[in-house]
């Protein structure tokens, strides 16, 4: 019930946010913040009451009773569809990330949104609710429902409060994700149908579908449906082109949620569904998948380097970073998977922060074009310093979360395929190139006279507080990532055992 | 039966010719009146086929349907002619090619 409550609180919170606009103009954001923090607090209280949380027990992937939480209620029994939610270490990490970044996104929207604030905060909360659902739903239909529905508030956030080209961006975002979602729907139904024809039972439950027997070819095609849907969301090369537009045009809070959380649903889906449901098909497909990952790493980095739009650059950097996640997942060993999970968390913070900085700049300068910036450190040293921190985080400075992630991915990947590792590792170089270019063009360089008398205001205490949360998070992840790793470890372990199959050849490391 | 014993196929051929003529008329005529006439031809082609089939099977059903078709045709044309009057009034023409306010 806890999990249902988590979602319901956010849904109701959204309505409250709309209503609260009638009380005062500034009320919605306060309500939204209160709701998210209350949700977070509620989760933490519930967790602290559970004995398992101190020692996350190893969940058996296909036995829900071993999971941290499990909830099941009938929904459409005619098709064996139920409201089944469950929580294990990875879900928990993602849920926590969602709520924390949700609060951060609300903080980002504090002064950014000037019209229809109530509706904005409502959309924000609803999209968070959808994401929570995605991370907790273990009934495939329910998962699909959340997967699709979370996009609608996101669509509105881009379409209503976005920037100059919002219509195009929102449309592109929606069509990409929906079209791929349809493929996933077909895959889900096909999987269920295969299971139905084998067992005679209609069920959409993850736990029941885990060991569905099917022909290799069938598995391959069904798996591809899932794969494409998740990779579009990730986004992986070459399905990424919606992302730069959506990120660039979204309002700051939207970008934070998009980059910080929404992309992670794709990675989560791969780990939770695409591979475990079709272990052989997925792992036979690992080579192309890893190639796509490596291509994403390189391509994203090169394109990021060519951008002049602050947010677009960060968007492409996300493409590059999420390429590591794809690599990590399809290397499918504990090191790489831990790296992927770590990257999901760390990238969430580092990119969210960069988008907030971009948003703050846009709010102050009314442009995102880096050619018009330059030398902003002079007037906004605090913002500059913060930006520097997150830039070096994003280029993978050891001691910060992203490094741990990328290194683990590479380490795991190296055991699977040396040459892809080498290609991916060039991402460290190109990553540094665009990251530093970003810094150079915006905060460093000759002071642009244009802004001299513009009365630019440096980060205030609210912004610094928000940033501090993320900075501390990244530092902690960077030098003591063990809690995150421990949370994910048992889950990954059981997934690995589940998918361990003699037919899957592990490519020997080249001598 | 007795009297003329025309094979069913021959009548069907005739009726299909009639039907085609009607269709052709529909496609090449621009005047709404002629279009309605072509429709009549098509309906009657169907009616003829029914009658022939009924005769073939020795059932009265074919002729029943024939009556029905006549009624239907009458109803269609009655409404059609009513509309034609309005068309003349509002479009000042009976050329259907000019009645194309809506497109795209």
């Amino acid at each position, binding site marked *: 019930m806890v999990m249902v409550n988590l979602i319901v609180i956010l849904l109701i919170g959204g309505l409250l946010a709309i209503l609260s606009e009638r009380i005062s103009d500034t009320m919605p954001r306060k309500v939204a913040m209160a709701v998210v923090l209350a949700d977070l607090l509620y989760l933490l209280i519930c967790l602290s009451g559970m004995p398992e949380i101190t020692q996350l027990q190893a969940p058996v992937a296909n036995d829900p009773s071993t999971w941290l939480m499990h909830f099941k209620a009938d929904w459409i029994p005619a098709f064996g569809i139920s409201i089944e939610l469950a929580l294990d270490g990875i879900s928990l990490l993602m849920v926590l990330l969602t709520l924390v970044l949700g609060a951060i996104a609300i903080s980002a929207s504090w002064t950014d949104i000037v019209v229809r604030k109530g509706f904005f905060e409502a959309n924000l909360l609803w999209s968070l609710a959808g994401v929570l659902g995605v991370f907790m739903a273990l009934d495939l239909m329910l998962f699909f429902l959340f997967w699709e529905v979370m996009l609608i508030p996101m669509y509105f956030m881009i379409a209503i409060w976005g920037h100059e080209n919002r219509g195009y961006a929102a449309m592109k975002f929606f069509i990409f994700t929906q079209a791929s979602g349809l493929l996933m729907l077909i895959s889900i139904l096909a999987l269920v149908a295969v299971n139905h024809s084998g067992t005679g039972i209609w069920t959409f439950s993850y736990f029941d579908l885990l060991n569905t027997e099917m022909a290799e070819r069938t598995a391959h095609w069904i798996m591809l449906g899932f794969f494409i849907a998740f990779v579009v969301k990730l986004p992986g090369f070459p399905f990424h082109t919606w992302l730069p537009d959506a990120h660039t045009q979204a309002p700051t809070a939207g970008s934070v949620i998009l980059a910080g959380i929404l992309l992670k649903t794709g990675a989560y889906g791969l780990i939770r569904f695409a591979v475990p449901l079709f272990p052989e098909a997925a792992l036979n497909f690992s080579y192309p998948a890893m190639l796509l990952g490596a291509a994403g790493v390189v391509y994203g980095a090169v394109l990021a380097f060519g951008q002049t739009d602050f947010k677009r650059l960060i968007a492409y950097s996300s493409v590059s970073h999420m390429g590591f996640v794809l690599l990590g997942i399809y290397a499918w060993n504990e090191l790489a998977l831990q790296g992927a999970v770590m990257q999901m968390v760390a990238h969430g913070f580092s990119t969210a922060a960069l988008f907030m900085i971009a948003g703050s700049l846009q709010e102050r300068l009314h442009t995102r074009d880096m050619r018009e910036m330059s030398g902003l450190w002079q007037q906004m040293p605090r913002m500059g310093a913060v930006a520097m921190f997150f830039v070096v985080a994003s280029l993978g400075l050891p001691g910060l979360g992203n490094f741990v992630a990328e290194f683990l991915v590479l380490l795991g990947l190296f055991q699977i395929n040396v040459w892809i590792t080498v290609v991916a590792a060039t991402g460290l170089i190109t990553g540094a190139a665009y990251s530093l270019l970003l810094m150079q063009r915006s905060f460093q360089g000759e002071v642009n006279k244009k802004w001299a008398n513009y009365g630019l205001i440096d980060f205030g205490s609210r912004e610094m507080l928000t940033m501090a949360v993320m900075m501390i998070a990244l530092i902690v992840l960077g030098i003591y990532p063990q809690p995150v790793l421990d949370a994910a470890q048992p889950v990954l372990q059981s997934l690995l055992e589940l998918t361990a199959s003699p037919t899957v050849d592990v490519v020997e490391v080249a001598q | 039966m007795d009297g003329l014993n025309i094979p069913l196929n021959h009548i069907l051929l005739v009726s299909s010719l009639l039907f085609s003529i009607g269709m052709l008329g529909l496609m090449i005529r621009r005047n709404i009146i002629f279009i309605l006439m072509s429709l009549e031809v098509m309906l009657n082609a169907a009616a003829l086929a029914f009658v022939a089939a009924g005769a073939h099977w020795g059932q009265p059903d074919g002729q029943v349907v024939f009556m029905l078709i006549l009624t239907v045709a009458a109803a*269609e044309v009655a409404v059609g002619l009513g*509309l034609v009057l309005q068309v003349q009034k*509002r479009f000042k023409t009976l050329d259907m090619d000019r009645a194309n306010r809506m497109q795209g």
Partner: protein
Amino acid sequence: MNATMFSSLAPILILSLTSIVLMIQASVKRDQSVAWVITAVGFALTLWGASYARDFTQPVTILLQVDHWSLFFTSLITLASLVILVLSRDTFSPEGERKEEYYLLLVLSVLGAVVLIQSSHMVSLLLGMELMGVALYAMIAFPERGQLPLEGAIKYLVLSACASAMLLYGFALIYAATGELSYAGIGAKAAAAFAVNPMLIMAGSAMVLAGIGFKLSLAPFHMWTPDVYQGAPTPVTGFLATVSKGAVFIALSRFYMDGALYQYSGLNTALVVLAVASMLVGNWLALRQENIKRLLAYSSIAHFGYLLVVLIALAHLDAGLISQSITFYLTAYTVTTLTAFAVVSTVAGEDPAKQDISAFEGLFWHRPLEASALTVAMLSLAGIPLTAGFMAKFFVITVGIQSDLWGLLAVLVVGSAVGIYYYLRVIFAMSKSIEGDGQSANHLEKLLVLALLASILVLGSWPQPFIVYVGGL
């Protein structure tokens, strides 16, 4: 004929009675509000009649088949007609036009639709279709002024008559081949006839398919759709889109199932081609359409393409899941389309200029209820979860997968992906920040919109009771 047969004919009888009462009323004292009330009461009684007749399901003569399925659809289209009735009260041409006859036509058209739904024989099919169609011509042309309604009506008349001719000719050929006019009879003799002269029965079935395909506006028989949708008064368009098409589709499926025509691969291929063409053409045409009524017209083309997938699957699956899917789909489609037309009708009225998508800009902010309803309707048409349209698509895909119709599913995905674009365009326009006048619809219409909105959401988010109910039909 015996007494129970009259009981099972309750809906038809009540509708006929209503039409007579309306005629008498019009000849005694013309008063359109009274006529409206009579019609409403007539529809309400028809609903009652439909539930009453559930206890007397049986074949009524050779012509009609009264069963739970047809009674369900009788109720559905009666409900839809009630909605149309509510929308018709104030929306079109309030100044001076006398609408008594309009209500009469509406009742007659519904009567035709009910006959069509219950038909099990070519003659009843013909009767129902023509009754419904002829009344519709007049309804479309009902406004006294303007060229568009007239143009729509005359086009519909001519093309529809042409389609009827095709249909009839097809029937004639089938009759010639089998000597049967009832579906069941055809089904029984078709195989033998096929063995003797396959060309005859196949050509006949194909022509029937073409005739019905016209009414369902399947590509390439679709071209009338946008013009008629646009030209007709909005409530009439709504009627055409839901009642007329729904009834015809039921007739088609009955003919197809009882006539056992699904076993002929040639016909199936033809259906596949029509389905594919409809899915693609409908969505492509709608892509950049500016007029919302035309847009909905194109969307309906695509939707009947999706629905056709279910019919095609008949060749591979037993009828249970198929008829369940058809029922769910048509219900969802009807509710959704009615919602859309209800909103269009209350917001845009009969003014062509207000039917452009751009005229809907900013609707979110000054008419939130209508905008939300239209948004949900669009999402439902696009097949987004939590809406009825999603569950409908769920059925179609499930059926498609179980019958291994992968090619059709691929086209469905492509079509739906294209579809998202234009549905979203409407939503996007409404969400634009433009201040507009805050005029609002009357309470009845608001209530109606709210009810429709709720039913889309309930069907989408809690379909279990309905699925169980439909399964029991």
